[in-house]
């Protein structure tokens, strides 16, 4: 079954149990408006038939979706559905795994991210990543932030660059008096926000987050989620999360991936449905999405 990547179309689609002659439901004005917003927003990533394989065994297949600018897109789905694999494609992290191969098109601002002349370092500068576990360098808070800009030879006052990054990550007030202390002395939530600040310091377009809150307590999780909502005014964010409520709280659009069993017992991830988050969590189009978000499997 093809993934559902509908917007306004799905709203007017006939559904089981409703005869066409009964008069199809009209879309609510609010929903129409949002669909129009989506049509006017530009895609920062366009994925076309993306397949990722490890050692020739596909992990995720046929992913086709557009990720929009200044939006938070959430990838959800059960373990092994390929959501982390796919997000790692978006800044070529899979390049670091020798057995990994990527086919299909990953377009970043309409440019092929995997073209031969694209510099992976530039890719990872423009497309930052935050991981599941906070991973600050064993250095001071200041040096953690200044490291990327220094390596990239960024011009300007380093103190200002560090302050700006920490401020954007809503961490400045908490750490401004102890910039020289080791980052390992921070709490887990602060360390994760430091990692976000470190990403922001090199002025990216996109922040990829692979389960950024799964190692954090609810208060720190709340702080990160608030931060994401602030950051989307300036950046585009893609988040992989196991926490469906988190996807519902923070994201504008949600992509649901599922594990398809294929021949020979091999399992491969497939995009099932991609739509506005509100739609996914109130009236998903695909029965498999419905079952997953309502906790009936997965």
């Amino acid at each position, binding site marked *: 079954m093809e993934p559902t990547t509908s917007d306004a179309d799905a709203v007017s689609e006939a559904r089981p149990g409703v005869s066409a002659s*009964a008069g199809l439901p009209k879309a609510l004005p609010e929903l129409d408006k949002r669909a129009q917003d989506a049509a006017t927003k530009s895609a920062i990533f366009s994925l076309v038939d993306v397949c990722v394989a490890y050692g020739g065994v596909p992990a995720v297949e046929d992913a086709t979706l557009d990720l929009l600018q200044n939006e938070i897109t959430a990838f959800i789905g059960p373990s092994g559905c390929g959501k982390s694999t796919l997000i790692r494609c978006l800044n070529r992290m899979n390049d670091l795994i020798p057995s990994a191969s990527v086919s299909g098109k990953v377009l970043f601002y309409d440019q092929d991210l995997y073209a031969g002349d694209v510099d992976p370092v530039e890719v990872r500068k423009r497309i930052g990543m935050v991981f599941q576990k906070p991973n600050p360098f064993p250095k001071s808070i200041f040096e953690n932030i200044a490291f990327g800009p220094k390596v990239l030879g960024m011009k300007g006052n380093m103190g200002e660059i560090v302050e700006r990054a920490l401020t954007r990550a809503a961490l400045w007030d908490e750490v401004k008096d102890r910039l020289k202390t080791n980052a390992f002395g921070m709490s887990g939530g602060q360390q994760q926000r430091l990692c976000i600040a470190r990403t922001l310091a090199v002025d990216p377009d996109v922040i990829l987050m692979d389960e950024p809150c799964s190692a954090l307590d609810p208060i720190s999780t709340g702080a990160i989620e608030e931060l994401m909502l602030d950051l989307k005014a300036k950046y585009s964010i893609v988040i992989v999360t196991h926490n469906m409520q988190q996807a519902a709280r923070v994201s504008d659009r949600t992509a649901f991936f599922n594990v398809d069993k294929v021949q020979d017992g091999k399992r491969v991830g497939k995009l099932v449905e991609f739509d506005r988050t509100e739609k996914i969590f*109130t009236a998903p189009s695909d029965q498999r999405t419905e079952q997953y978000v309502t906790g009936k499997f997965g």
Partner: protein
Amino acid sequence: MSPDSGRQHFQQALAELEDSALGGLDLVLEQLDRVLEALERQDVELAQLVIADDDRLDGRYLEVHQGILSLLALQAPVAGDLRLVAALLHVIKHVERMGDQCVNVAKLIPLSGHEPPVQSEILDRLVQMGQFARAEVVQCKRSFAERNVPMAEDLLARDRDINRLNREIFRLAIEAGDDVDVREWAMIMTLVARAFERVGDNAVDIGEQTAFVVTGLFREFSDASHVAAT
């Protein structure tokens, strides 16, 4: 990956909540039957019983309302489950309103006096209205329980019969003659007709909730503010 696996306690709690809300419609049927009998027989005591028993419906409303709040707070339902919970909130409100309409009729019965000047052409139509309303309540319950949208949509056609009788009763009341007692009785009967007509509307509203649960889109089966000729 079986649809039956996972969150079974939640699914059971949700199913119980639905049973409780739809069970409220059975209480409405009891009230409708008794108030119709009281109307036909001018039985003031039976009417009093209907008024007293409205507490059961109000109790059911509070019980389901609290159950819905708890489920929202504790289980965070989404998708089809969320639509069902939202729809049940409407259903139980309509159930409570239907109960109130039965009380309205019951309160009108003593006003028409000990031996009212009954005009059978009005009373017969009222009884028929009540029976139509009863049939609509049965149908709205079944359509919701079975998630049957065509059956829910058919309620609108059923409701037109009630509306037609309501208009006829109104006309007959206007033409009831010069006798003050007859005119007073007829006026009271237009209020009874109005109550049954509202019960029918509530049943149609529950039908709309059935369509919402199934399709995910809310739409009115008929648009009262832009009425087409019926």
